[in-house]
């Protein structure tokens, strides 16, 4: 082995070891099992980031379908968890739209809305609108078909207006 090859090997080994040390101190795994789990997560994140950079990023269809099934069954927290797993990079407008819708449906109340959930919904709906402003959902179950309509409904929900005190509001249906 030539001296130059040894030096190149040294550079590679030192770089890998230094990255490993940085990873350990950044993630602070408490045991070997946690180390394996965190390394798996880090590799998964790196792969997703790589897909984003190379333009091959796609939503996981199985997790998206699972999220949709839970959404229709009314399990909104469960649905969000699946949608977030399907789109970890938050780059798919349809998935973000469903996440926002799940916040809307969970937070909606006949007499008052859950402002915290609505605010989270506003974040997701804004993201969906930024990703694809022209998105029109083909889902027949949803009455609000576009991110803009959903965003408007969520913003109206957190705003206190005279209309909020109208007793006829109790007759309104969830969209």
């Amino acid at each position, binding site marked *: 082995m030539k001296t130059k090859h*040894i*030096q*190149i*090997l*040294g*550079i590679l080994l030192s770089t890998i*070891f*230094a990255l490993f040390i940085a990873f*350990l*101190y950044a993630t602070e795994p408490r045991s070997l099992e946690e180390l394996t789990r965190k390394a798996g997560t880090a590799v998964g994140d790196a792969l997703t980031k790589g897909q984003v950079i190379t333009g091959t990023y796609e939503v996981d269809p199985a997790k998206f379908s699972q999220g949709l099934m839970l959404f229709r069954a009314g399990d909104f927290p469960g649905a969000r968890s699946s949608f977030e797993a399907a789109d970890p990079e938050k780059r798919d407008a349809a998935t973000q739209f469903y996440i926002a819708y799940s916040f809307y449906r969970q937070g909606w109340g006949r007499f008052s809305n859950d402002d915290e959930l609505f605010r989270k919904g506003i974040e997701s709906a804004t993201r969906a609108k930024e990703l694809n402003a022209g998105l029109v959902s083909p889902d027949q179950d949803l009455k609000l078909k576009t991110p803009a309509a959903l965003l408007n409904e969520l913003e109206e929900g957190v705003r206190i207006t005279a209309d909020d005190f109208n007793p006829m509001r109790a007759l309104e249906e969830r969209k």
Partner: protein
Amino acid sequence: MKELEPQTVDSEIVLNEDGAISTLRPAALAPTDIERRRAVLYSIVLPLALLLVTLLGGIRFSSGSIVYVKPALIYLIFGVGLMILFFVANLIRFDGWISERFDLTKNFINAITLLALFAASVQIFNSVIPESGIPFWIVSFCFLWTLWNNLFSNFDTKRLLRSLAAMFSLAFVVKYVILANLARPADQGWLDALINNPGQAAATWLLDILQFSAATGYLQFFTIAIFVIALWFFPNSTED
């Protein structure tokens, strides 16, 4: 008479000038072999050993789990002070490590080794200085005093190494032998400690000593040993 070729190696029987049988030194190696071994030491063993010190210097064990202690800002200052000391005492000659005479790969691996030495120095301070409380400030002040004095002393390389080995071993004894025995055991509750060992409980509270498992001391002992050995093999120049 058979003439020796420049590349001839190992124990070969030859005749000397008087015609008598003579053997070469058994360990005599060809220049290429020496160069290769030196390259392995300088480019692989030293940087990896120093990075190992960097990794281990911040690791502690507590109640069956691993704790990663990140270095305090003052350790970076101590690390810089120690590096200056290395240069002043001629343990490292900068132009013998980074130079326009060397090719790119050699400069690159040498820069990595110097960075690893700095990181290991920082982590060694992290290893031997108590993490918090009055002991942290006292030991830190002692290190600052020693480093500051050493910067203006006439050191040769061996004296510096002896001084560093003594300084780190003393700090190790203070932290992992004296203070560790003053602190109540990590697995002992406050009430139990107050009833059975009120002195230790009081010292732990007053000195704000963090308790770690005994394995931490063993690990840090070997970490300091690796650091001192790596320094011993650290050449002041990588020039051929």
